[in-house]
């Protein structure tokens, strides 16, 4: 048992579980969701008939299209044009997809599991006062790595995926691809600035860069972290809009698909085919999932279920950490086993991520694309000043809040 817990709590295990059980299936399903959803938005039916030859009735509303896509991409010829820089050409798709997968390490996708109390109710007060109690001897924290510099790690690592697009464009030895690569790098650079700044207000308010901490604390200690009013979407709504805009621009999808620019230059991956192109394609969808996960963690309470504390649903009263001290103000508690609470919270995280992915697809299929100059104007002249101003406002608010004891 001991070793099992140790293995389960190992970052590698958690990363593999997160990426291969949650992220990859979700990203592949998004390829189907995108087509069906766009169809529904445009009064069409969308792809709905892919089925295995041995079971033609197994249509499942077309979900199997992603399997067909995967088979197609894997079985296509792996063609490398003659003049390309072979090394960089091969490296670029990996650089596009790798950093996103690594960045998932900072996402808290669930609460900490205490295996010894799985079938009983977890007592948060006992946990706070006696962390070395034998019930809490082992724990599995459902977050691969919690660094103090949390979200900064994401900004840093995602800059690397810049190189994917840029190198692909450069290595392709193709003018259109090069244009696409340059556009990709300029767009990513511009929007990274606004993206980073837009979250500063949140960090100031919560006092931490670590998404796990943000999820566990919420904006104010006067409210329980599981109270939706304590999630940052309410306190930092402009930041949510700014961050979402910048983050969607980072995914390089419509309305910010200047690097791809299908009607004009086809983009930095114009020379790619088969599985290598598929990696770029998949990377975009994984980025969608990742951005949803970040927004969920920072703005929508991560894995928190409304009014569900570690020991069950709490109505009236709240339980929150005040000055490092866990206090409970009573209220009616509907006790639930630790296993049920954990399952609910994992489900809540998945649901929030899926809803945000859906929202991103909605945006992608609604807004027309920007021109390159409009794109730069929006990034530098609108998002950046607004983000700066919001950071200042948040700082003032935080000062006032400390002074008057609001939070």
């Amino acid at each position, binding site marked *: 048992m001991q070793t099992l817990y140790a293995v389960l709590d190992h970052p590698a295990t958690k990363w593999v579980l997160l990426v291969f059980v949650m992220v990859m299936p979700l990203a592949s399903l998004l390829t189907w969701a995108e087509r069906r959803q766009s169809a529904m938005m445009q009064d069409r039916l969308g792809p709905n008939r892919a089925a295995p030859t041995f079971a033609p009735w197994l249509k499942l509303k077309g979900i199997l299209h992603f399997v067909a896509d995967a088979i197609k991409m894997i079985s296509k010829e792996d063609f490398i044009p003659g003049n390309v820089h072979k090394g960089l050409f091969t490296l670029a798709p990996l650089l596009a997809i790798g950093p996103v997968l690594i960045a998932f390490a900072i996402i808290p996708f669930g609460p900490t599991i205490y295996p010894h109390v799985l079938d009983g109710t977890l007592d948060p007060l006992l946990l706070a006062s006696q962390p070395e109690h034998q019930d809490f001897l082992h724990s599995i924290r459902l977050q691969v790595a919690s660094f103090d510099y949390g979200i900064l790690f994401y900004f840093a690592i995602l800059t690397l995926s810049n190189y994917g697009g840029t190198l692909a464009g450069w290595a392709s030895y193709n003018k259109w691809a090069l244009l696409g690569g340059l556009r990709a790098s300029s767009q990513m650079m511009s929007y990274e600035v606004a993206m980073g700044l837009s979250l500063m207000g949140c960090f100031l308010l919560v006092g931490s860069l670590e998404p796990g901490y943000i999820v566990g604390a919420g904006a104010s200690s006067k409210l329980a972290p599981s109270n939706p009013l304590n999630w940052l979407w309410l306190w930092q709504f402009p930041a949510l*809009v700014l961050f979402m805009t910048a983050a969607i621009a980072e995914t390089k999808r419509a309305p910010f698909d200047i690097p791809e620019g299908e009607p004009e230059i086809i983009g930095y991956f114009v020379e790619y085919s088969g599985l290598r192109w598929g990696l770029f394609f998949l990377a975009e969808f994984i980025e969608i999932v990742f951005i949803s996960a970040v927004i969920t963690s920072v703005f929508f309470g991560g894995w928190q279920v409304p009014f569900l504390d570690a020991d069950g649903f709490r109505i009236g009263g709240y339980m929150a950490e005040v000055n490092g001290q866990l206090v409970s103000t009573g209220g009616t508690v509907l006790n639930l086993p630790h296993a049920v609470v954990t399952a609910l919270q994992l489900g809540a995280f998945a649901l929030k991520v899926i809803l945000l992915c859906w929202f991103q697809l909605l945006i992608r299929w609604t807004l027309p694309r920007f021109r390159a100059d409009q794109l730069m104007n929006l990034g530098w002249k609108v998002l950046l000043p607004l983000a700066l101003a919001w950071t200042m406002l948040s700082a003032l608010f935080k000062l006032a809040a400390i002074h008057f004891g609001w939070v």
Partner: protein
Amino acid sequence: MGASHGHDAADDETPGPRVLVVSAVSPRVRTIAVERPGPSDVTYLEAARKGLGVTLRHFVKNVLGKRRPAAALARGEEVAKQGLVPWNEIETIQYPEEKTHYPERFRGLHRLMQRDDGAVRCVACMLCPTVCPAHCITIVPAEADDQGVEKKPAVFEIDELRCVVCGLCVEACPCDAIRMDSGVHAKPVEHRGDAIMTREKLLDLSKQVGKDPASTATQGGEGPDWRE
């Protein structure tokens, strides 16, 4: 613009620059109000919100609503909704499973009529290949077994890819041997050759259509009105 047509500038609803003041000295000198993009245009927020509202409405309606019955869709007809669930707005007809509505007067491919004994009724008079504007009927005549009609077609081919469906061949035929009433839709083919209807295929269509008494009427030797 409005002013040049003598309109009052104020009730000109068309977007674009509006003439505010026309100079007293020269009618060419005007003060014009140009709508500059405001704050909501610069951030695109207002337009984005409106657009998202439209697509969201369609999405919800199409996901929650039921599809109108295929037959109604095919005829483009509105049907009264049952219960609370509204019809969605998807107009797609799932072709192989659902067929679109064919009008009453749809004729379909040609067919060759047959006699009582199953022989082809055509007497190879060559009127139809002569009249055909698309030159798509090929007939090679041969001597008929029935001495009364002299000739029969040894080869009778219609290239359906070239046919312009004018129906002149049917009009021209003196013995009602060729008709366009099989009701069979022209099928997609993989090779051009497959679109050529041979004598046998055309006769087969007649058999498919069924025991229409007219298609097996006896002919010849019964006076001028044998076609009745």
